[in-house]
């Protein structure tokens, strides 16, 4: 599945080649000459709008159609985080710079590469402006990083829609803008650049619009994959992780994790609310599959270690899949679930099977009656039946036994910290 996230020397070569074509096409389109670029603002030559919007729309259609059919994992595509205040201020500054200087950073590179001295002067100005921003950055820090910061958010997410309708709307808007541009160029001949471009070929343009419409409709009709479809698309990987028991951890390892303050840990309990209220591990948070899809999966980061638990394993496995479908979530499953946890730390049975052995239980909380009875005799007494050797008469908190209890049981640590698979940032922020 795409994106491929090439690394190392392949990344360097791929990026240089992509940059090469970027610069080549910009120059071939005439963007190395400020007169061509400035003419945009006098409506006599609209090539900036035509090139920019057809590029944006082409890539947009391919990305979202590709995502709809399951070839591209959109979660892995870099979406620049939104900082509204900074975008407004920066955008206005860029507009001012554009009308005064006639270039933008990318085109000034191309202009400099074709030996235009004004391009070089502009480039020097860009460097100076960046340096100036750096010098003033301590004073604008809050404005730059906090005001209007919304994180990674797309237009369709902000509107609560699927990507498809927005893709179609943007496509249609662009086609309308192109029609307007053709009209404007004929109407406002003031700043016509000296060298013309290749004329429009109706055949080619019709082909583009048709292809674009098809892709837009694919995105609208098929729609972006929801959690269930994403799980189906990654079935092989997810099933392999579950079959190999690689993601199941022993109760003792979880207890060890609960005392490890160096790791940001989240415990998600997907049992029924009544079971959860009767007993849950200390600091475990109740979560439904829907909450996992809507709240947890978008917010969890690669630095956090997540452990999912149910009474046995069946429900936890399903919930785990809803998390593991994102490659930047480090999620595990409590082997044997809360039942096995209570076998060890409530009933004192230290010889329960290790995490290699699953539990075929049907998600019934075997200790429900015991905890109900405990609640009825709130004397803080040791739970009946508990007899952990070496700790006679101690008050055991089953929700998080004493740290010494960790050593009562051997386990092979399986939790590994995850290195986030991140797409390199595109602009100055990355």
């Amino acid at each position, binding site marked *: 599945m795409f994106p*491929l996230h*090439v690394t190392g020397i392949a990344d360097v070569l*791929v*990026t240089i080649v*992509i*940059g*090469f074509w970027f610069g*080549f096409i*910009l*120059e071939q389109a005439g963007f190395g000459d*400020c*007169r061509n670029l400035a003419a945009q*603002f*006098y409506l006599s030559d609209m*090539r900036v709008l035509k*090139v920019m919007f*057809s*590029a*944006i729309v082409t*890539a*947009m259609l*391919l990305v979202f159609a590709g995502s709809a059919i399951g070839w591209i994992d959109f979660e892995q595509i870099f979406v*620049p985080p939104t900082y509204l205040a*900074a975008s407004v201020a*920066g955008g*206005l500054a*860029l*507009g001012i*710079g*554009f009308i005064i*200087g*006639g270039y*933008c950073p990318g085109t*000034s590179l*191309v202009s*400099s590469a*074709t030996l235009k001295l*004004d*391009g070089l*002067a502009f*480039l*020097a*100005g860009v460097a*100076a*402006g*960046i*340096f100036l*921003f750096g010098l003033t950055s301590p004073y*604008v820090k809050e404005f730059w990083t906090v005001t209007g910061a919304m994180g990674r*958010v*797309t*237009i369709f997410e902000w509107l609560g829609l699927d990507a498809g309708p*927005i893709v179609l709307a943007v496509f249609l808007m662009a086609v309308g803008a192109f029609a307007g541009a053709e009209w404007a160029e004929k109407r406002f001949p003031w700043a*016509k650049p000296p060298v013309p471009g290749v004329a429009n070929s109706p055949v080619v343009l019709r082909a583009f619009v048709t292809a674009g419409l098809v892709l837009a409709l694919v995105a609208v009709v098929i729609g972006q994959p929801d959690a269930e479809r994403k799980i189906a698309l990654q079935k092989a990987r997810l099933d392999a992780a579950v079959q190999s028991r690689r993601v199941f951890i022993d109760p003792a390892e979880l207890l060890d994790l609960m005392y490890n303050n160096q790791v940001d840990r989240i415990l998600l309990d997907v049992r029924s609310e009544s079971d959860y209220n009767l007993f849950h591990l200390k600091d475990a948070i109740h979560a439904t599959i829907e909450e996992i899809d809507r709240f947890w999966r978008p917010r969890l980061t690669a630095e956090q270690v997540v452990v999912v638990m149910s009474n046995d394993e069946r429900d936890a496995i399903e919930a785990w899949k809803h998390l593991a479908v994102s490659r930047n979530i480090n999620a595990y499953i409590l082997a044997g679930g809360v039942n096995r946890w209570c076998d060890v730390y409530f009933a004192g049975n230290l010889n329960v099977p290790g995490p290699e052995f699953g539990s075929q239980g049907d998600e019934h909380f075997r200790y429900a009656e015991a905890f109900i009875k405990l609640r009825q005799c709130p004397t803080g007494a040791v739970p009946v039946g508990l007899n952990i050797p070496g700790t006679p008469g101690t008050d055991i908190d089953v929700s998080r036994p004493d740290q010494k209890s960790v050593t009562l049981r051997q386990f092979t640590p399986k939790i590994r910290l995850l290195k986030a698979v991140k797409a*390199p940032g*595109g*602009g*100055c*922020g*990355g």
Partner: protein
Amino acid sequence: MANQPTPKDQVTKRYWNPYVAGVSLGGVLFLAFLLTGSGLGASGGIARVVVQVVKVVAPSTVDRNPYFAPIGGGFANPLNNHIVWMVAGVLLGGFVSGVISGRSRVEICRGPRVRPAQRLVLAFIGGAFMGWGAAMARGCTSGQALSGGAVLSLGSWVFMMMIFAAGYALAYPFRRFWL
């Protein structure tokens, strides 16, 4: 008054059709997404060169500055980054394209009423606004508008609208620069 073509302009080959160029550029952008997960960019690479220069001249400034430090503070090499290689490629591609089309020559492109020296000053000033704005917005027309716009990032579209708004608003007041 339209720009009069000079004899040098007659020699230049025709530019690509803008729609063809745009769709091709979109294809390259898409390829970038497929292979690396992120799009194109330019200002980020320039910023890293700036940080590298400052690092050589005054390294403590880099370390203590909230904007420079994440880019190149401490032991980090600001030039060892995806966006820098991209910029290298852009320079190369622009250069080759200019050479094969006969557009590679030392000259100053300017509006008809602007003298060459004036043009250089204006270009520098325009660039300074652009550089400041690109650092503020965490990207420029390539990284934010083009690449962020293609993936429908909310901030990128707001940014793009602002660029055009400011440019068009100032077009008439600044018409002496171009017309």
